[in-house]
């Protein structure tokens, strides 16, 4: 939607068009996020914005955020994955079994869980790409199958008491000083990247957005990074899960913007027939998208099992819906071809904030479902009506 508006913008004010194009939608999302923060902040007497709660909030959102990163790729490619919740449960369950029952060490267990996710993702991708069964059906089947396997291999029991090192993945914090160092490094990279990009565009004779705008953006981002680090440090430090999310986000944003695979995913979702006649191997790329999604579900499974220090048969239930909702709120189009990982992350944060804020206000759980459902519908409605 923002793209639509902004390109019109671009036609009239071609100098500023570029920078507006990227960010209009993010602005709307950020405004929504700030609004939510302010509202909950007021209703909880500031408790919502306390260091302790923000730390919890970020940790809570991390699992859905990992899934939303992969789900963005899947939806942009024009597909859907309904099986990720079950796959999170299955990968997490596999990790617990390997460690608790068979005594595998943590590194091997983590790798195994990710591989389990990737293999099942690949298997679903094969059905979608090479057997042309609609993704909706394949992953609906997968949702049942993976849940079934999980119940089968765990004999329906909860498996708990993982190693201390495994528990650390989801529950430890990146301490005070290294946290600040990390924040400073991030900011330095941000500044360096912006300067380099500008000089490169300049040397190519391309349109540049106003320096104020680019550097202003860097300043705002830096401020938020420092603020977040400060707030989190006031509690226990930066939660490791959120660092994992940040790392994955950087990797996948890079993949989607700067690699052939990323470009092809957008082309396939945008117009599969044109992509095919452009020599793009549709099947292989779709297979990779699902495999990637599976691997990320594996990562999410590890995080979940680690945080709970247990694998249960119902672990991860409905996570696929939260992940899809995060993408859609973040501006990803279910028709395919359009969507951004950053948007999905903000979408995940919005969803987590609503859960968290409402429970803090002691609003009964059923309201959370109703409110989240309504927000999903309204978000898409805003998207559609702003297109006109």
């Amino acid at each position: 939607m923002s793209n639509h508006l902004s390109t019109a913008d671009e036609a009239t004010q071609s100098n500023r068009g570029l920078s507006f194009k990227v960010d209009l939608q993010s602005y709307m999302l950020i405004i929504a996020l700030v609004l939510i923060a302010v509202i909950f902040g007021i209703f909880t007497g500031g408790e919502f914005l306390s260091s302790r709660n923000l730390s919890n909030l970020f940790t809570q959102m991390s699992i859905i955020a990992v899934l939303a990163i992969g789900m963005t790729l899947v939806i942009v490619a024009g597909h859907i994955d309904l099986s990720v919740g079950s796959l999170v449960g299955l990968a997490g369950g596999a990790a617990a079994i390997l460690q608790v029952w068979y005594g595998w060490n943590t590194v091997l267990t983590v790798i195994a869980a990710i591989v389990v996710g990737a293999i099942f993702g690949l298997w679903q991708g094969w059905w979608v790409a090479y057997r042309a069964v609609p993704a909706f059906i394949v992953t609906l089947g997968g949702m049942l199958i993976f849940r079934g396997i999980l119940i089968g291999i765990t004999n329906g029991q909860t498996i708990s008491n993982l190693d201390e090192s495994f528990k650390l993945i989801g529950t430890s914090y990146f301490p005070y000083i290294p946290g600040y160092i990390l924040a400073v490094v991030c900011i330095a990279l941000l500044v360096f990247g912006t300067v380099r990009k500008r000089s490169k565009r300049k040397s190519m004779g391309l349109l540049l957005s106003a320096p104020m705008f680019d550097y202003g953006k860097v300043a705002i981002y830096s401020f938020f990074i420092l603020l977040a680090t400060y707030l989190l440090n006031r509690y226990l430090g930066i939660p490791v899960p959120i660092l994992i999310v940040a790392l994955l986000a950087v990797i996948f944003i890079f993949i989607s913007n700067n690699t052939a695979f990323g470009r092809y995913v957008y082309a396939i979702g945008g117009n599969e027939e044109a992509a095919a006649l452009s020599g793009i191997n549709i099947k292989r790329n779709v297979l990779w998208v699902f495999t990637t999604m599976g691997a990320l579900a594996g990562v999410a499974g590890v995080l979940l099992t680690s945080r709970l220090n247990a694998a249960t048969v119902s672990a991860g239930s409905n996570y696929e819906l939260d992940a899809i909702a995060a993408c859609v709120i973040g501006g990803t189009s279910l028709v395919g071809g359009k969507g951004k990982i950053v948007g999905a992350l903000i979408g995940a944060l919005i969803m987590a904030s609503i859960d968290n804020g409402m429970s803090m206000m002691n609003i009964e759980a059923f309201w959370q479902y109703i409110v989240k459902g309504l927000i999903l519908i309204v978000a898409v409605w805003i998207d559609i009506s702003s297109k006109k």
Partner: protein
Amino acid sequence: MGEYALQMQGIIKEFPGVRALDNVTFSVRKGEIHALCGENGAGKSTLMKILSGVYPHGTYDGQILVNGQKVQFKSIKESQDAGIAIIYQELALVEEMTVAENLFLSHDLMRAKVINWNKIYVEAQKWLDHIGLNIDPQTKVGDLTVGKQQLIEIAKALTKEIEILILDEPTAALTESDVEILINLLNDLRSKGVTCIYISHKLGEVMTLADTVTILRDGQTISTDPIEELTEDKIITKMVGRELTELFPYEQREISDENVLEVKNYSTVDETGKKVINNVSFTLKKGEILGFSGLMGAGRSELFISLFGGFKGKKFGTVYIDGKETNIKKPADAIKEGLAYVSEDRKRYGLVLGMDITKNTTLTALNKVMKLKVIDQALEIKSVSVITDKVKLKAPSLEAKVGQLSGGNQQKVVLSKWLMNNPKILILDEPTRGIDVGAKYEIYKIINELASQGVGIVIISSELPEVLGMSDRIIVMSQGTITGEFLRDEATQENIMTCATGGKKREQSLVNS
């Protein structure tokens, strides 16, 4: 005659930043066929959208009179109720429904509590007879050719009481024979007193069909003249506002003797086992422009899609590129061999409309702008701008979405995309469909320039003047086989049409001679 069916006076329509219509006057007499001509962006569509209520009263200035009565349409429904029927280039039929169902889709007959199917079929048959179409009303619309679908659209409009029938580029997708049926139908309707507004880029049809021609340019009415006072050249001059010395900038070139492409005994069978291409052999020389003519369904597009590796089905025969036997299984193979295929439907097969110009252009050639498997975005934009400058692409920025460009500029993006690969063989399927005269001319010039650089070029076109005007040599196909081949000097509209329609006979005579 004499009385006006429609008068649009002093129409002004503004969009943010642009005045799309600037004091346009457009008057149509009762019972005439009135052609509305102009380049893309001249304001034809905007004017028709005002007339049909897409832009409701109040969003524009000026007044509209239908049969001398002032009207103010606030919605499409109101203009329909006033008897204005518009048929767009993109057909609005439900392909999965039958002809009869489509004809009466929004008719009272279909809104009855219990639908009387017999009555609908009888009524449908009446209308089909009326427009001279000999098909069963229970045929699925999706099974008909585009040309016949167009006629169904017209019949559908006629089922309602209409004052004015508007046809927007009705023949853009039609073959010569379907065009003829359409022209006959319109002539017939005129004799029955139906007023018709005809929007077309095809001036030949305008000359044979229209009584009066109004020309728009840059949102202004340039002239309204009776057809007797016009020639094709005069119309073009008025449309573009400058003299076009020639419609087709053909240049005599040195053509090498080397074959860049040789196809021998090539046949294809589709998934249902039907033989689509039957034993076709031909050659293409370096720097040659080879025209492929024929009716729709003659197998021309299918032949080249198959050669390009995009055809689902079996194929037989041998293909040599630069004298070497090749086996192209998928488009990626074809691209590697130096083939490029500009499809007839650029929106469906050529472009990702939601992506920007740069990304569309590098889709086939990402490896050229990657360093260590990473796309170098600066290099990418630079390489793209070199090519888009060459094809004279007009766009607000290379980061503009392709979906927002005009047809001509979209086609230039498709061309750019393929030129990124420096193709040896460029296949152009209906390269100028739905493109205005100015952009057409520019595309022809690009084609000539590529040919003079030694690129072997195939032009598949349903517009005979285009094939005749651009090609060094012309091959005619009918029903999956080659039925004739002419050098530039021998080719005429007549002998090409003979081969295109009388496929079998010609084959016989070739064998005999």
